[in-house]
Protein backbone atom coordinates (compact mmCIF):
# COMPACT_ATOMS: atom_id res chain seq x y z
CA UNK A 1 0.00 0.00 0.00
CA UNK A 2 1.23 3.49 -0.85
CA UNK A 3 1.66 5.97 1.99
CA UNK A 4 2.30 8.85 -0.37
CA UNK A 5 0.60 9.14 -3.75
CA UNK A 6 1.22 11.97 -6.20
CA UNK A 7 -0.97 12.17 -9.30
CA UNK A 8 -0.14 14.55 -12.15
CA UNK A 9 1.09 17.07 -9.62
CA UNK A 10 1.76 20.52 -11.05
CA UNK A 11 2.82 23.48 -8.92
CA UNK A 12 3.16 27.02 -10.18
CA UNK A 13 4.44 30.29 -8.73
CA UNK A 14 2.76 33.00 -10.76
CA UNK A 15 3.35 32.09 -14.39
CA UNK A 16 6.39 29.91 -13.63
CA UNK A 17 5.85 26.16 -13.46
CA UNK A 18 7.93 24.77 -10.58
CA UNK A 19 7.00 21.11 -10.99
CA UNK A 20 5.04 19.61 -13.81
CA UNK A 21 2.73 16.58 -13.88
CA UNK A 22 4.64 14.41 -11.44
CA UNK A 23 3.15 11.05 -10.46
CA UNK A 24 4.79 9.04 -7.74
CA UNK A 25 3.96 6.34 -5.20
CA UNK A 26 5.97 5.76 -2.03
CA UNK A 27 5.22 2.44 -0.39
CA UNK A 28 4.62 2.26 3.35
CA UNK A 29 7.77 1.65 5.39
CA UNK A 30 10.15 2.58 2.57
CA UNK A 31 12.57 5.41 1.97
CA UNK A 32 12.39 7.39 -1.25
CA UNK A 33 14.93 10.13 -1.92
CA UNK A 34 14.44 12.88 -4.47
CA UNK A 35 17.64 13.98 -6.17
CA UNK A 36 18.42 16.51 -8.86
CA UNK A 37 20.39 19.69 -9.52
CA UNK A 38 19.54 23.04 -7.94
CA UNK A 39 16.25 24.37 -9.25
CA UNK A 40 14.98 20.89 -10.12
CA UNK A 41 11.91 21.36 -7.89
CA UNK A 42 12.90 19.13 -4.96
CA UNK A 43 11.96 21.59 -2.19
CA UNK A 44 8.73 22.52 -3.98
CA UNK A 45 7.81 18.84 -4.15
CA UNK A 46 8.49 18.28 -0.45
CA UNK A 47 6.60 21.43 0.59
CA UNK A 48 3.61 20.47 -1.54
CA UNK A 49 3.52 16.97 -0.08
CA UNK A 50 3.66 18.55 3.40
CA UNK A 51 0.67 20.74 2.51
CA UNK A 52 2.56 24.03 2.64
CA UNK A 53 2.04 24.78 -1.06
CA UNK A 54 -1.09 24.48 -3.14
CA UNK A 55 -0.96 22.50 -6.34
CA UNK A 56 -2.21 24.07 -9.55
CA UNK A 57 -3.20 20.66 -10.86
CA UNK A 58 -3.17 17.06 -9.68
CA UNK A 59 -3.30 15.70 -6.16
CA UNK A 60 -1.27 14.57 -3.16
CA UNK A 61 -2.65 11.76 -1.02
CA UNK A 62 -1.21 10.77 2.35
CA UNK A 63 -2.36 7.46 3.80
CA UNK A 64 -5.41 7.53 1.59
CA UNK A 65 -6.47 11.09 2.35
CA UNK A 66 -6.11 14.09 0.09
CA UNK A 67 -3.71 16.65 1.58
CA UNK A 68 -5.80 19.50 0.17
CA UNK A 69 -8.86 18.30 2.10
CA UNK A 70 -7.10 18.27 5.49
CA UNK A 71 -6.65 21.21 7.83
CA UNK A 72 -3.31 21.89 9.53
CA UNK A 73 -4.06 19.74 12.57
CA UNK A 74 -5.24 16.77 10.53
CA UNK A 75 -2.13 17.01 8.36
CA UNK A 76 0.18 17.23 11.39
CA UNK A 77 -1.28 13.95 12.66
CA UNK A 78 -0.42 12.21 9.37
CA UNK A 79 2.81 13.77 8.12
CA UNK A 80 5.84 15.37 9.79
CA UNK A 81 8.26 17.79 8.16
CA UNK A 82 11.97 18.39 8.68
CA UNK A 83 12.61 21.68 6.84
CA UNK A 84 15.84 22.60 5.09
CA UNK A 85 16.41 25.67 7.28
CA UNK A 86 14.56 25.12 10.55
CA UNK A 87 13.94 28.19 12.70
CA UNK A 88 15.67 27.76 16.05
CA UNK A 89 14.06 30.17 18.52
CA UNK A 90 16.61 31.52 21.03
CA UNK A 91 15.75 30.96 24.67
CA UNK A 92 13.73 27.78 24.12
CA UNK A 93 14.86 24.59 25.87
CA UNK A 94 15.56 21.52 23.75
CA UNK A 95 12.82 19.60 25.58
CA UNK A 96 10.26 22.34 24.87
CA UNK A 97 11.33 22.45 21.22
CA UNK A 98 10.84 18.70 20.83
CA UNK A 99 7.49 19.00 22.63
CA UNK A 100 6.25 21.36 19.88
CA UNK A 101 5.82 18.16 17.89
CA UNK A 102 2.85 17.29 20.13
CA UNK A 103 0.92 20.49 19.36
CA UNK A 104 -1.64 18.72 17.18
CA UNK A 105 -2.47 16.29 20.02
CA UNK A 106 -3.02 18.58 22.99
CA UNK A 107 -4.23 21.69 21.16
CA UNK A 108 -3.57 25.24 22.24
CA UNK A 109 -5.59 25.62 25.41
CA UNK A 110 -4.61 22.41 27.17
CA UNK A 111 -1.23 21.49 28.61
CA UNK A 112 0.53 18.41 27.20
CA UNK A 113 -0.88 15.19 28.66
CA UNK A 114 1.08 12.38 30.28
CA UNK A 115 1.00 10.60 26.90
CA UNK A 116 2.50 13.66 25.21
CA UNK A 117 5.27 13.90 27.80
CA UNK A 118 5.97 10.17 27.48
CA UNK A 119 6.20 10.46 23.68
CA UNK A 120 8.65 13.37 23.98
CA UNK A 121 10.80 11.58 26.59
CA UNK A 122 10.89 8.48 24.41
CA UNK A 123 12.09 10.40 21.33
CA UNK A 124 14.63 12.37 23.37
CA UNK A 125 16.05 9.08 24.67
CA UNK A 126 16.02 7.39 21.24
CA UNK A 127 17.97 10.25 19.68
CA UNK A 128 20.35 10.58 22.65
CA UNK A 129 19.30 14.16 23.39
CA UNK A 130 18.90 13.59 27.13
CA UNK A 131 22.06 15.42 28.15
CA UNK A 132 20.98 18.51 26.18
CA UNK A 133 17.31 18.40 27.19
CA UNK A 134 17.43 21.48 29.42
CA UNK A 135 19.86 23.50 27.33
CA UNK A 136 18.95 26.52 25.23
CA UNK A 137 18.47 25.39 21.62
CA UNK A 138 20.93 27.98 20.31
CA UNK A 139 23.77 26.44 22.32
CA UNK A 140 23.64 23.20 20.31
CA UNK A 141 26.06 22.42 17.48
CA UNK A 142 24.78 21.96 13.93
CA UNK A 143 24.61 18.17 14.28
CA UNK A 144 22.85 18.31 17.62
CA UNK A 145 20.36 20.85 16.28
CA UNK A 146 19.52 18.68 13.31
CA UNK A 147 18.95 15.72 15.63
CA UNK A 148 16.69 17.94 17.73
CA UNK A 149 14.65 18.91 14.65
CA UNK A 150 14.35 15.23 13.73
CA UNK A 151 13.24 14.52 17.30
CA UNK A 152 10.47 17.15 17.00
CA UNK A 153 9.28 15.53 13.77
CA UNK A 154 9.36 12.05 15.35
CA UNK A 155 7.45 13.37 18.39
CA UNK A 156 4.57 14.06 16.01
CA UNK A 157 4.15 10.27 15.95
CA UNK A 158 3.25 10.18 12.25
CA UNK A 159 3.84 7.26 9.92
CA UNK A 160 5.02 9.55 7.12
CA UNK A 161 7.89 12.02 7.22
CA UNK A 162 9.23 14.41 4.59
CA UNK A 163 12.70 15.87 4.95
CA UNK A 164 14.23 18.65 2.88
CA UNK A 165 18.03 18.38 2.82
CA UNK A 166 18.23 17.07 6.39
CA UNK A 167 22.04 16.82 6.34
CA UNK A 168 22.95 20.15 4.75
CA UNK A 169 25.69 21.90 6.69
CA UNK A 170 26.68 18.82 8.70
CA UNK A 171 30.10 17.21 8.74
CA UNK A 172 30.54 13.68 7.40
CA UNK A 173 30.14 11.95 10.76
CA UNK A 174 26.99 13.85 11.62
CA UNK A 175 25.57 13.30 8.14
CA UNK A 176 26.01 9.56 8.60
CA UNK A 177 24.62 9.63 12.16
CA UNK A 178 21.53 11.55 11.06
CA UNK A 179 20.75 9.23 8.16
CA UNK A 180 21.36 6.12 10.26
CA UNK A 181 18.94 7.39 12.90
CA UNK A 182 16.35 7.92 10.21
CA UNK A 183 16.96 4.50 8.68
CA UNK A 184 16.47 2.93 12.10
CA UNK A 185 13.04 4.58 12.33
CA UNK A 186 12.15 3.27 8.87
CA UNK A 187 13.19 -0.27 9.69
CA UNK A 188 12.00 -0.52 13.28
CA UNK A 189 8.87 1.65 13.23
CA UNK A 190 7.75 1.31 9.62
CA UNK A 191 8.16 5.03 8.94
CA UNK A 192 7.69 6.13 5.32
CA UNK A 193 10.30 8.68 4.28
CA UNK A 194 10.36 11.10 1.36
CA UNK A 195 13.59 13.09 1.51
CA UNK A 196 15.65 15.34 -0.71
CA UNK A 197 19.43 15.04 -0.74
CA UNK A 198 22.24 16.60 -2.71
CA UNK A 199 24.82 13.97 -1.80
CA UNK A 200 24.32 11.27 -4.44
CA UNK A 201 26.46 8.72 -2.62
CA UNK A 202 24.53 8.99 0.63
CA UNK A 203 21.26 9.18 -1.27
CA UNK A 204 22.09 5.92 -3.01
CA UNK A 205 23.28 4.19 0.15
CA UNK A 206 20.30 4.97 2.33
CA UNK A 207 17.25 5.18 0.08
CA UNK A 208 15.33 2.19 -1.20
CA UNK A 209 14.49 4.21 -4.25
CA UNK A 210 15.70 7.34 -5.99
CA UNK A 211 13.61 9.81 -7.94
CA UNK A 212 15.50 12.12 -10.29
CA UNK A 213 13.99 15.53 -10.98
CA UNK A 214 15.17 18.17 -13.40
CA UNK A 215 13.48 21.45 -14.36
CA UNK A 216 10.40 20.39 -12.43
CA UNK A 217 9.95 17.12 -14.30
CA UNK A 218 10.39 13.55 -13.18
CA UNK A 219 13.24 12.15 -15.24
CA UNK A 220 13.85 8.79 -13.66
CA UNK A 221 12.40 6.69 -10.85
CA UNK A 222 13.92 3.42 -9.76
CA UNK A 223 16.12 1.42 -7.40
CA UNK A 224 19.09 3.41 -6.11
CA UNK A 225 21.76 1.26 -7.78
CA UNK A 226 20.15 1.78 -11.21
CA UNK A 227 19.52 5.50 -10.91
CA UNK A 228 23.06 6.38 -9.78
CA UNK A 229 24.45 4.50 -12.80
CA UNK A 230 22.01 5.99 -15.30
CA UNK A 231 23.00 8.24 -18.17
CA UNK A 232 20.09 10.53 -17.28
CA UNK A 233 21.69 11.36 -13.93
CA UNK A 234 24.93 12.53 -15.55
CA UNK A 235 22.96 14.41 -18.19
CA UNK A 236 20.88 16.26 -15.58
CA UNK A 237 23.99 17.44 -13.75
CA UNK A 238 25.75 18.16 -17.06
CA UNK A 239 28.88 16.30 -16.07
CA UNK A 240 30.55 12.93 -16.11
CA UNK A 241 29.88 10.74 -13.07
CA UNK A 242 31.65 7.54 -12.08
CA UNK A 243 30.21 4.99 -9.73
CA UNK A 244 32.61 2.71 -7.87
CA UNK A 245 31.82 -0.10 -5.51
CA UNK A 246 33.37 0.25 -2.04
CA UNK A 247 32.63 -2.76 0.15
CA UNK A 248 29.29 -3.27 -1.59
CA UNK A 249 28.27 0.40 -1.41
CA UNK A 250 27.93 2.65 -4.46
CA UNK A 251 30.10 5.75 -4.36
CA UNK A 252 29.33 8.44 -6.93
CA UNK A 253 32.33 10.50 -8.00
CA UNK A 254 32.15 13.55 -10.26
CA UNK A 255 34.87 13.51 -12.90
CA UNK A 256 36.39 16.72 -14.22
CA UNK A 257 36.16 16.97 -17.97
Amino acid at each position, binding site marked *: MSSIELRDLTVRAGSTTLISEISLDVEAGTWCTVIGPNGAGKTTLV*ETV*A*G*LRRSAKGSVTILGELVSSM*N*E*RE*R*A*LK*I*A*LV*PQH*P*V*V*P*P*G*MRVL*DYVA*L*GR*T*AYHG*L*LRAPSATDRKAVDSVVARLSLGEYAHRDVVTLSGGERQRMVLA*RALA*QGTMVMVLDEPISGLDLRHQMTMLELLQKEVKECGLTVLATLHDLTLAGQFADRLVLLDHGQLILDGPSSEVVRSEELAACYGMKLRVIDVDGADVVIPVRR
Partner: protein
Amino acid sequence: MVLVAAVTLIALAAAVVCGLVIGPISIGTTRILGDVFSHIGLGRSTLTPTQTLIIWQVRAPRMVLGLLAGSMLAVAGGTYQGVFRNPLADPYLLGVAAGAGLGATVAIVDIGGGLTTPSWTPLLAFGGAMVAVAVTWIIGGRGLRSSTSTLILAGVAIASLFTSAQTFLQQQSSPDSIARVYIWLLGSLASASWSSVLLVLPYVAICVAICVAAGRALDVMSVGEDESRSLGLRVRRVRFIVIAASSLGTAAIVSAVGLIGFVGIIVPHIIRLLVGTSYRRILPISVIFGAAFLVFADTIARTVLAPSELPLGVVTAVVGAPVFVLILSLRRQVVT
Protein backbone atom coordinates in the same frame (compact mmCIF):
# COMPACT_ATOMS: atom_id res chain seq x y z
CA MET B 1 9.26 32.07 37.42
CA VAL B 2 7.45 31.66 40.77
CA LEU B 3 9.71 34.29 42.34
CA VAL B 4 9.06 36.76 39.50
CA ALA B 5 5.31 36.11 39.70
CA ALA B 6 5.39 36.69 43.48
CA VAL B 7 7.40 39.90 43.12
CA THR B 8 5.05 41.26 40.43
CA LEU B 9 2.03 40.44 42.60
CA ILE B 10 3.64 42.32 45.50
CA ALA B 11 4.37 45.22 43.11
CA LEU B 12 0.72 45.16 42.03
CA ALA B 13 -0.48 45.31 45.65
CA ALA B 14 1.96 48.16 46.34
CA ALA B 15 0.75 50.01 43.22
CA VAL B 16 -2.87 49.70 44.36
CA VAL B 17 -1.99 51.10 47.78
CA CYS B 18 0.07 53.93 46.22
CA GLY B 19 -2.76 54.73 43.83
CA LEU B 20 -5.19 55.12 46.72
CA VAL B 21 -2.91 56.70 49.33
CA ILE B 22 -0.69 59.17 47.45
CA GLY B 23 -2.26 62.44 46.40
CA PRO B 24 -2.26 66.17 47.05
CA ILE B 25 -4.53 65.72 50.07
CA SER B 26 -2.91 63.58 52.73
CA ILE B 27 -5.38 61.17 54.31
CA GLY B 28 -3.20 58.50 55.92
CA THR B 29 -2.55 54.94 54.78
CA THR B 30 -4.10 53.17 57.78
CA ARG B 31 -7.29 55.23 57.62
CA ILE B 32 -7.66 54.54 53.88
CA LEU B 33 -6.99 50.84 54.38
CA GLY B 34 -9.44 50.87 57.30
CA ASP B 35 -12.06 52.33 54.96
CA VAL B 36 -11.30 49.70 52.31
CA PHE B 37 -11.63 46.89 54.87
CA SER B 38 -14.86 48.39 56.26
CA HIS B 39 -16.43 47.72 52.85
CA ILE B 40 -15.92 44.00 53.38
CA GLY B 41 -17.26 44.09 56.92
CA LEU B 42 -13.93 44.38 58.76
CA GLY B 43 -13.81 47.34 61.21
CA ARG B 44 -15.21 50.83 60.75
CA SER B 45 -14.25 53.68 58.47
CA THR B 46 -12.88 56.88 60.05
CA LEU B 47 -12.91 58.94 56.84
CA THR B 48 -14.95 62.11 56.46
CA PRO B 49 -17.49 62.20 53.59
CA THR B 50 -15.11 64.44 51.57
CA GLN B 51 -12.22 62.05 52.10
CA THR B 52 -14.45 59.11 51.11
CA LEU B 53 -15.39 61.01 47.96
CA ILE B 54 -11.70 61.64 47.12
CA ILE B 55 -10.79 58.01 47.63
CA TRP B 56 -13.75 56.35 45.89
CA GLN B 57 -14.70 58.84 43.20
CA VAL B 58 -11.30 60.29 42.27
CA ARG B 59 -8.38 58.05 43.20
CA ALA B 60 -9.98 54.58 42.98
CA PRO B 61 -11.42 54.86 39.44
CA ARG B 62 -8.17 56.43 38.28
CA MET B 63 -6.17 53.62 39.85
CA VAL B 64 -8.47 50.92 38.41
CA LEU B 65 -8.38 52.50 34.94
CA GLY B 66 -4.57 52.58 35.24
CA LEU B 67 -4.55 48.87 36.10
CA LEU B 68 -6.75 48.07 33.10
CA ALA B 69 -4.75 50.27 30.72
CA GLY B 70 -1.39 48.94 31.90
CA SER B 71 -2.43 45.30 31.69
CA MET B 72 -4.04 45.68 28.26
CA LEU B 73 -1.19 47.65 26.68
CA ALA B 74 1.44 45.29 28.11
CA VAL B 75 -0.27 42.09 27.03
CA ALA B 76 -1.14 43.55 23.60
CA GLY B 77 2.52 44.51 23.11
CA GLY B 78 3.62 41.01 24.10
CA THR B 79 1.18 39.31 21.72
CA TYR B 80 2.12 41.65 18.85
CA GLN B 81 5.80 40.83 19.44
CA GLY B 82 4.91 37.13 19.34
CA VAL B 83 2.61 37.14 16.36
CA PHE B 84 4.91 39.34 14.26
CA ARG B 85 8.08 37.71 15.65
CA ASN B 86 9.38 41.25 15.94
CA PRO B 87 10.85 42.64 19.18
CA LEU B 88 10.02 46.21 18.11
CA ALA B 89 6.30 45.51 17.72
CA ASP B 90 3.99 47.44 20.01
CA PRO B 91 0.20 47.70 20.31
CA TYR B 92 0.14 50.67 17.92
CA LEU B 93 1.88 48.79 15.08
CA LEU B 94 -1.17 48.43 12.82
CA GLY B 95 -2.37 52.00 13.10
CA VAL B 96 -4.41 51.98 16.32
CA ALA B 97 -2.66 55.09 17.64
CA ALA B 98 -2.88 57.03 14.38
CA GLY B 99 -6.53 56.07 13.90
CA ALA B 100 -7.45 56.97 17.47
CA GLY B 101 -5.49 60.20 17.17
CA LEU B 102 -7.41 61.19 14.05
CA GLY B 103 -10.74 60.24 15.63
CA ALA B 104 -10.01 62.21 18.78
CA THR B 105 -8.80 65.19 16.75
CA VAL B 106 -12.01 65.17 14.71
CA ALA B 107 -13.98 65.29 17.97
CA ILE B 108 -11.83 67.94 19.63
CA VAL B 109 -11.57 70.37 16.69
CA ASP B 110 -15.24 69.68 15.90
CA ILE B 111 -15.11 69.78 12.12
CA GLY B 112 -18.68 68.66 11.67
CA GLY B 113 -20.16 70.67 14.56
CA GLY B 114 -21.87 69.18 17.59
CA LEU B 115 -19.05 66.80 18.50
CA THR B 116 -17.38 68.89 21.17
CA THR B 117 -19.09 67.24 24.11
CA PRO B 118 -16.46 65.15 25.93
CA SER B 119 -18.34 61.91 25.28
CA TRP B 120 -17.60 62.11 21.54
CA THR B 121 -13.81 62.03 21.96
CA PRO B 122 -13.49 58.41 23.19
CA LEU B 123 -16.17 57.27 20.78
CA LEU B 124 -14.48 58.75 17.72
CA ALA B 125 -11.04 57.70 18.98
CA PHE B 126 -12.27 54.11 19.29
CA GLY B 127 -13.91 54.27 15.87
CA GLY B 128 -10.80 55.78 14.29
CA ALA B 129 -8.58 53.10 15.81
CA MET B 130 -10.78 50.26 14.59
CA VAL B 131 -11.11 51.78 11.09
CA ALA B 132 -7.31 52.14 10.86
CA VAL B 133 -6.70 48.50 11.85
CA ALA B 134 -9.44 47.24 9.53
CA VAL B 135 -8.03 49.20 6.58
CA THR B 136 -4.51 47.94 7.41
CA TRP B 137 -5.85 44.37 7.48
CA ILE B 138 -7.58 44.76 4.12
CA ILE B 139 -4.66 46.54 2.43
CA GLY B 140 -2.20 44.03 3.89
CA GLY B 141 -3.85 41.27 1.84
CA ARG B 142 -6.59 40.58 4.40
CA GLY B 143 -3.85 39.42 6.75
CA LEU B 144 -4.87 35.82 6.21
CA ARG B 145 -2.99 35.20 3.01
CA SER B 146 -0.25 37.77 3.27
CA SER B 147 2.94 37.62 5.29
CA THR B 148 3.29 39.50 8.56
CA SER B 149 5.80 41.87 6.96
CA THR B 150 3.16 42.93 4.40
CA LEU B 151 0.79 43.64 7.27
CA ILE B 152 3.44 45.69 9.11
CA LEU B 153 4.17 47.73 5.98
CA ALA B 154 0.45 48.31 5.46
CA GLY B 155 0.27 49.44 9.11
CA VAL B 156 3.11 51.92 8.55
CA ALA B 157 1.39 53.30 5.45
CA ILE B 158 -2.01 53.66 7.14
CA ALA B 159 -0.47 55.22 10.25
CA SER B 160 1.30 57.80 8.06
CA LEU B 161 -1.90 58.56 6.18
CA PHE B 162 -4.02 58.97 9.32
CA THR B 163 -1.31 61.01 11.06
CA SER B 164 -1.11 63.33 8.03
CA ALA B 165 -4.86 63.82 8.11
CA GLN B 166 -4.71 64.52 11.84
CA THR B 167 -1.86 67.02 11.39
CA PHE B 168 -3.85 68.80 8.67
CA LEU B 169 -6.90 69.07 10.95
CA GLN B 170 -4.76 70.38 13.80
CA GLN B 171 -3.24 72.98 11.50
CA GLN B 172 -6.71 74.20 10.56
CA SER B 173 -7.95 74.43 14.15
CA SER B 174 -7.68 77.01 16.91
CA PRO B 175 -4.72 77.20 19.35
CA ASP B 176 -7.04 76.03 22.13
CA SER B 177 -8.03 72.93 20.13
CA ILE B 178 -4.39 72.22 19.28
CA ALA B 179 -3.52 72.31 22.97
CA ARG B 180 -6.36 69.92 23.84
CA VAL B 181 -5.40 67.51 21.05
CA TYR B 182 -1.80 67.62 22.23
CA ILE B 183 -2.81 66.83 25.82
CA TRP B 184 -4.95 63.93 24.60
CA LEU B 185 -2.09 62.56 22.47
CA LEU B 186 0.25 62.47 25.47
CA GLY B 187 -2.18 60.28 27.42
CA SER B 188 -3.58 60.81 30.87
CA LEU B 189 -5.74 59.10 33.49
CA ALA B 190 -6.98 62.47 34.82
CA SER B 191 -10.46 62.10 33.35
CA ALA B 192 -10.96 58.61 34.83
CA SER B 193 -14.36 57.83 36.30
CA TRP B 194 -16.27 54.69 37.20
CA SER B 195 -18.27 55.07 33.98
CA SER B 196 -15.08 55.05 31.89
CA VAL B 197 -13.86 52.02 33.88
CA LEU B 198 -17.13 50.18 33.23
CA LEU B 199 -16.99 51.15 29.56
CA VAL B 200 -13.57 49.60 28.92
CA LEU B 201 -13.76 46.74 31.44
CA PRO B 202 -15.59 44.21 29.21
CA TYR B 203 -13.21 44.85 26.30
CA VAL B 204 -10.12 44.57 28.48
CA ALA B 205 -11.34 41.47 30.34
CA ILE B 206 -12.17 39.56 27.16
CA CYS B 207 -9.16 40.74 25.14
CA VAL B 208 -6.65 40.10 27.95
CA ALA B 209 -8.10 36.60 28.44
CA ILE B 210 -7.77 35.83 24.71
CA CYS B 211 -4.21 37.18 24.54
CA VAL B 212 -3.08 35.20 27.61
CA ALA B 213 -4.73 32.05 26.24
CA ALA B 214 -2.79 32.54 23.00
CA GLY B 215 0.54 32.08 24.80
CA ARG B 216 0.95 28.46 23.76
CA ALA B 217 0.11 29.29 20.13
CA LEU B 218 2.66 32.12 20.11
CA ASP B 219 5.31 29.72 21.43
CA VAL B 220 4.60 27.43 18.49
CA MET B 221 4.69 30.40 16.10
CA SER B 222 8.21 31.22 17.26
CA VAL B 223 9.43 28.63 14.71
CA GLY B 224 7.89 30.56 11.81
CA GLU B 225 4.70 30.25 9.83
CA ASP B 226 5.49 27.21 7.66
CA GLU B 227 6.88 25.12 10.50
CA SER B 228 3.99 26.11 12.78
CA ARG B 229 1.53 24.98 10.13
CA SER B 230 3.37 21.67 9.72
CA LEU B 231 3.09 21.21 13.50
CA GLY B 232 -0.69 21.54 13.30
CA LEU B 233 -1.21 25.20 14.15
CA ARG B 234 -3.87 27.06 12.17
CA VAL B 235 -1.55 30.04 11.94
CA ARG B 236 -3.77 32.40 9.97
CA ARG B 237 -6.75 31.87 12.22
CA VAL B 238 -4.63 32.34 15.36
CA ARG B 239 -3.07 35.47 13.87
CA PHE B 240 -6.49 36.94 13.11
CA ILE B 241 -7.87 36.22 16.59
CA VAL B 242 -4.79 37.52 18.41
CA ILE B 243 -4.49 40.69 16.32
CA ALA B 244 -8.22 41.35 16.62
CA ALA B 245 -8.19 40.93 20.41
CA SER B 246 -5.03 43.02 20.90
CA SER B 247 -6.26 45.80 18.63
CA LEU B 248 -9.78 45.90 20.07
CA GLY B 249 -8.54 46.03 23.65
CA THR B 250 -5.92 48.65 22.80
CA ALA B 251 -8.47 50.76 20.94
CA ALA B 252 -10.81 50.64 23.94
CA ILE B 253 -8.03 51.74 26.29
CA VAL B 254 -6.68 54.43 23.99
CA SER B 255 -10.18 55.86 23.58
CA ALA B 256 -10.40 56.25 27.36
CA VAL B 257 -6.89 57.40 28.30
CA GLY B 258 -5.27 58.68 25.10
CA LEU B 259 -1.94 57.50 23.74
CA ILE B 260 0.30 56.09 26.42
CA GLY B 261 3.50 54.93 24.82
CA PHE B 262 6.31 52.64 25.95
CA VAL B 263 4.26 50.31 28.21
CA GLY B 264 3.42 47.92 25.37
CA ILE B 265 6.99 47.60 24.22
CA ILE B 266 8.98 47.78 27.45
CA VAL B 267 6.93 45.67 29.87
CA PRO B 268 6.98 42.44 27.81
CA HIS B 269 10.72 42.92 27.25
CA ILE B 270 11.39 43.37 30.97
CA ILE B 271 9.37 40.23 31.74
CA ARG B 272 11.11 38.33 28.93
CA LEU B 273 14.48 39.17 30.48
CA LEU B 274 13.26 37.81 33.81
CA VAL B 275 11.31 34.67 32.88
CA GLY B 276 12.65 33.62 29.48
CA THR B 277 11.14 33.60 26.02
CA SER B 278 8.00 31.48 26.51
CA TYR B 279 4.84 33.51 25.91
CA ARG B 280 2.98 31.22 28.31
CA ARG B 281 5.02 32.91 31.05
CA ILE B 282 5.58 36.36 29.51
CA LEU B 283 1.92 37.21 28.85
CA PRO B 284 0.26 36.53 32.24
CA ILE B 285 3.11 38.20 34.13
CA SER B 286 3.05 41.16 31.73
CA VAL B 287 -0.63 41.63 32.61
CA ILE B 288 0.22 41.98 36.31
CA PHE B 289 3.43 43.96 35.86
CA GLY B 290 1.94 46.25 33.20
CA ALA B 291 -0.93 47.10 35.55
CA ALA B 292 1.43 47.84 38.45
CA PHE B 293 3.85 49.76 36.23
CA LEU B 294 1.23 52.13 34.86
CA VAL B 295 -0.30 52.89 38.26
CA PHE B 296 3.18 53.66 39.66
CA ALA B 297 3.89 55.84 36.61
CA ASP B 298 0.58 57.66 37.05
CA THR B 299 1.31 58.22 40.74
CA ILE B 300 4.57 59.90 39.73
CA ALA B 301 2.85 61.82 36.91
CA ARG B 302 0.29 63.40 39.24
CA THR B 303 2.53 64.11 42.22
CA VAL B 304 5.92 65.32 40.94
CA LEU B 305 4.63 68.69 39.71
CA ALA B 306 1.37 68.78 41.75
CA PRO B 307 -1.10 70.35 41.32
CA SER B 308 -0.29 70.16 37.59
CA GLU B 309 0.43 66.78 36.00
CA LEU B 310 3.22 65.36 33.90
CA PRO B 311 2.17 63.59 30.68
CA LEU B 312 1.87 59.90 31.50
CA GLY B 313 3.70 58.83 28.34
CA VAL B 314 6.71 60.87 29.43
CA VAL B 315 6.80 59.18 32.83
CA THR B 316 6.44 55.66 31.40
CA ALA B 317 9.46 56.31 29.16
CA VAL B 318 11.56 58.03 31.84
CA VAL B 319 10.87 55.28 34.40
CA GLY B 320 10.74 52.34 32.00
CA ALA B 321 13.92 52.91 30.01
CA PRO B 322 16.36 52.90 32.99
CA VAL B 323 14.61 49.87 34.53
CA PHE B 324 14.94 48.05 31.23
CA VAL B 325 18.61 48.97 30.82
CA LEU B 326 19.31 47.94 34.43
CA ILE B 327 17.71 44.51 34.01
CA LEU B 328 19.45 44.04 30.67
CA SER B 329 22.88 44.79 32.16
CA LEU B 330 22.22 42.61 35.23
CA ARG B 331 21.17 39.73 33.01
CA ARG B 332 24.27 40.13 30.84
CA GLN B 333 26.42 39.93 33.96
CA VAL B 334 24.68 36.72 35.03
CA VAL B 335 25.11 35.18 31.59
CA THR B 336 28.79 36.07 31.35
